[in-house]
């Protein structure tokens, strides 16, 4: 197996998960990952050899999403929300957060907050890596992470979410 494949393929499951969480569409997610991988291959010689490969690849994918896919979505192309790969949850789990609910709440956040929650909480990038992907100083990442989590929590708490959802 060649060097790029050896180093990059282990990242693909995570890249697909991140792409899916952003696009909420399986096909669009794989398109995004494919675009990302093409860039990785074509710019392989440009990567910093002493740098963090994972952060570099996630940065490419995130920028692609922000620059294009995100814009497409804002312009109203249908996104198959019902097509989420959320496993069914048994009803009556009052304590546990329902999985479908948390995805729906995530959808309600701006892209940067989404990415912060996903990169740190799901992809398990270090805070430093996350700062690199988002192009923010470390301290800013920490406060935005704090804000994003508080926002998600508010969306998932009915008593606080009410005013946010009211449409008049």
């Amino acid at each position: 197996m060649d060097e790029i494949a050896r180093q990059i393929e282990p990242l693909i499951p995570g890249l697909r998960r991140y792409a899916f969480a952003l696009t909420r569409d399986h096909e669009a997610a794989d398109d995004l990952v494919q675009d990302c991988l093409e860039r990785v291959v074509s710019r392989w010689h440009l990567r910093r050899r002493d740098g963090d490969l994972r952060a570099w690849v996630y940065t490419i994918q995130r920028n692609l999403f922000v620059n294009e896919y995100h814009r497409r979505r804002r312009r109203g192309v249908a996104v198959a929300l019902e097509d989420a790969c959320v496993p069914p949850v048994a009803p009556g789990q009052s304590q546990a957060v329902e999985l479908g609910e948390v995805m729906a709440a995530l959808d309600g956040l701006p892209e940067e907050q989404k990415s912060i929650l996903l990169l740190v909480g799901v992809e398990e990038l270090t805070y430093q890596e996350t700062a690199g992907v988002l192009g923010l100083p470390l301290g800013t990442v920490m406060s935005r992470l704090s804000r994003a989590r508080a926002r998600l929590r508010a969306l998932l708490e009915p008593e606080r979410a009410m005013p946010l959802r009211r449409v008049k």
Partner: protein
Amino acid sequence: MSDPTPIGEDDLQAFIDGRLGEDRLAAVEAWLADHPQRARDIGRERAQRDALRAALAAKAAEPIPARLRIASIRASRRSRLTLVLRNLVAGLALVTLGAGGGWLARGDARSVTAPATQVTRDAVAAHRIFAVEVAHPVEVPAREEAHLLRWLSKRLGRELAAPDLAEFGFHLVGGRLLPAEADAAAQLMYEDAGGRRLTVYVRAGAPGETAFRFWQDGAVASFVWLDQGYGFAVSAEAGRDQLLPIAETVYNALDGKSANAGDVKS
């Protein structure tokens, strides 16, 4: 508590993520014990982080599609690049105008294309369709030039002149109105003595302002620019150097006309 540093947001976040060292962990736990409200919130945020991870776990567990293997990416790269360059018209791929520099959009990304990209695609497509037309290359012929320009000006909301391209050997054949999504576009067609055709495309509803951009799509070359809410393109089967002075002449002939949309001559 061995670490006297005050507890910060960053500690609480690292606590949620289980990334605290032992000393700091003890300090944060002690702090949380004194702040039950905050402790409750932190507990929920941790559960939500876990829920998010669980909701997405199935995606990462899927086998990766063959098309995403690096070997497939390598194999398709060359053909894709060729395809991308060849299929400008089909809207397969264009460089967008983001400040960060272009990247190659792909797939059926019709709706994501930036205004100049759209103008290019539409202009080149219109050129290809009508430049080869023998029986009906234009809707209104050049002998009705005044009527043609009045009509197109009205529909575009902008005074449209027919640039004089005689010095390049091209004379006006006529023009037509074209749809451009929700807006109107006009195509003026020129022809030289050898029967070679050149089109000038003007489209409303193209916000932004750009310098000249050159596109080569197969044999068809275009110069495209955006100005004052309109997109412009000059296309012909010509080389870059040959087309550039023509495009400049067209630019000068059409420049600043949009401000006079209100007083279109009738």
